[in-house]
């Protein structure tokens, strides 16, 4: 495969993971504009482990993600008191805090960045994508998934029904931070070099845009959003210098045309019924 396409596919896979990390937190109606921060923690921790201590990539990724998710817990618990714009700003502040921390933290290179992590591959990246997609697919069919839906639709009713809303919300933060941490580790070992500005506020917001524009009702929306909006800048290369301006304009337009996102829950249901009909027809032909 050509190196360019491989690079695009790798970043697309990482973007899918990041979109899922935002989606995980959104399942309880919380929004994080700081997931680049969790990603940075996963990236720096796993890179430090593989480069300085020679730890194998897979355990390093998991340790990095666990570290990120531990911080996610520390953020998630006090963040429970915040809603709406306040939570958005608090997570944004968290992301910027992490970025400026790594900018000044000398053991991982500080302002000059950290060189050396390597060994990521398309197989590994998409392996993780499959793991988490399967997880969300199962989750949507489980009791836990239904509880999360209930919390998202109305936390007060959910708690009257006997659901532990606090625990579910904190768990969602933990999970989102974990997925972002894995994505960060994969990113570091794909790029061979990381610096704090890789994990800026713009990245956090782009990830959220993938999810919102793709559709925040189902994890398919998050995935489709990540795929479309990772490929779009590449498709727009023919526009040369105006490409990113046009990209911004497309984002604004999609938001106006489809404020609920490209993929809605109804679409997924209709698609499933359509698939069902086709399979049904195929079966009756066989007989």
């Amino acid at each position, binding site marked *: 495969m050509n190196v360019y396409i491989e690079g695009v596919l790798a970043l697309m896979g990482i973007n899918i993971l990041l979109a899922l990390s935002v989606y995980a937190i959104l399942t309880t109606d919380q*929004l994080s504009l700081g997931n680049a921060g969790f990603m940075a923690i996963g990236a720096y921790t796993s890179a430090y482990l593989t480069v300085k201590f020679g730890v194998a990539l897979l355990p390093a990724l998991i340790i990095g993600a666990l570290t990120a998710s531990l911080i996610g817990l520390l953020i998630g618990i*006090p*963040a429970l*008191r*915040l*809603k*709406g*714009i*306040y939570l*958005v*700003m*608090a997570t*944004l*502040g*968290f992301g*910027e*805090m992490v970025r*400026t*921390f790594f*900018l*000044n933290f000398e053991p991982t290179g500080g*302002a000059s960045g950290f060189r050396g992590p390597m060994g990521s591959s398309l197989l590994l990246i998409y392996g993780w994508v499959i793991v988490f997609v399967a997880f969300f697919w199962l989750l949507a069919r489980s009791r836990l998934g239904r509880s999360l839906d209930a919390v998202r639709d109305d936390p007060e009713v959910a708690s009257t029904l006997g659901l532990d809303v606090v625990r579910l919300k904190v768990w969602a933060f933990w999970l989102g931070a974990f997925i972002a941490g894995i994505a960060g580790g994969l990113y570091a070992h794909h790029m061979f070099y990381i610096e704090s500005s890789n994990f800026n*506020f*713009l990245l956090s*917001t782009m990830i*959220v*845009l993938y999810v*919102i524009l793709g559709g925040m009702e189902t994890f398919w929306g998050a995935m489709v959003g990540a795929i479309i909006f990772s490929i779009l800048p590449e498709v727009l290369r023919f526009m040369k*210098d*105006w490409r*990113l*301006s046009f*990209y*911004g*304009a497309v*984002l*604004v337009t999609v*938001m*106006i045309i489809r*404020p*609920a996102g490209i993929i809605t829950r109804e679409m997924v249901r209709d698609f499933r019924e359509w698939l069902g009909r086709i399979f049904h027809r195929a079966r009756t032909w066989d007989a």
Partner: protein
Amino acid sequence: MFWQQLINGLMLGSTYSLIAMGYTLVLGLLKMLNLAHGDVFMFGAFLGYSFALLGIPLYWALLLAMVGAGIISLLVERFCFRPLRKAHFLGPLLSTIAFGILLQNVGTQIWGSEPSRYPQTMEMAQFQLGPVLISSVQLIILAISLLLMVGIDQFVRRTRMGRAMRATSENQINASLLGVDVNRVVRFTFFTSGALAGVAGVLTALVYLQITPFIGIRQGLIGMVAIVIGGLGNLRGAMIAGILIGVIEVMNDAYFTASYRDMIIFGLFFLFLMFKPEGLWGTTKQES
């Protein structure tokens, strides 16, 4: 030394205050954040730059940059807020981020991504006031900022339009029932907010003398820190908090490590949101 730094901090802080006031006007009215605000600020700085390059005197360039930035802010309202009035609150929030990306890239196309040097448009005179050395630019920045702060504050409190703004902020439906043209109030507010960002842009450019299309990112974030510390929707709180942050920033650079500056500011921001989300002087509306 200390007094000199204090003056520098006040000057920097007053530009932050202007940005924070613009945020607050829109936030107070629609309960929504305009995250393209920092990029409207950047456009204001570059418009001032372009007019100055054309040889237009500073005050006229400043006025034109104000109007230009106000118009861009109106575009933000037109494309990111008006079509999404009924959407989830995240809709306009993210749409403004996308609009900000658009503005940054259009800015890069017009003025290039390399720093542009601001032309010297005025005589630099320096005054010795006791232990403090103040340049004429610093005096102008302080004077214009103070004038605008008092002006906007009094405008919102005393005029008919100001009253309409406060009524709309409290309840849009009631306001429109009472004969307030809500759309006009919203447009006016966005224009004013953008114009304030435009002034802040030109004034900041006069301090640093160098601008890039990406200066809006940090300034926009700092403005957001100011509105949180001042209490969301609290106009006077935003002004004072903006100045406070400017002073903290300059003092940190003078007596501590400059590279820790943003970590301290965002740490403060985060701690406030977690433990004192109503800010130092209280919000106009309790949402948290």
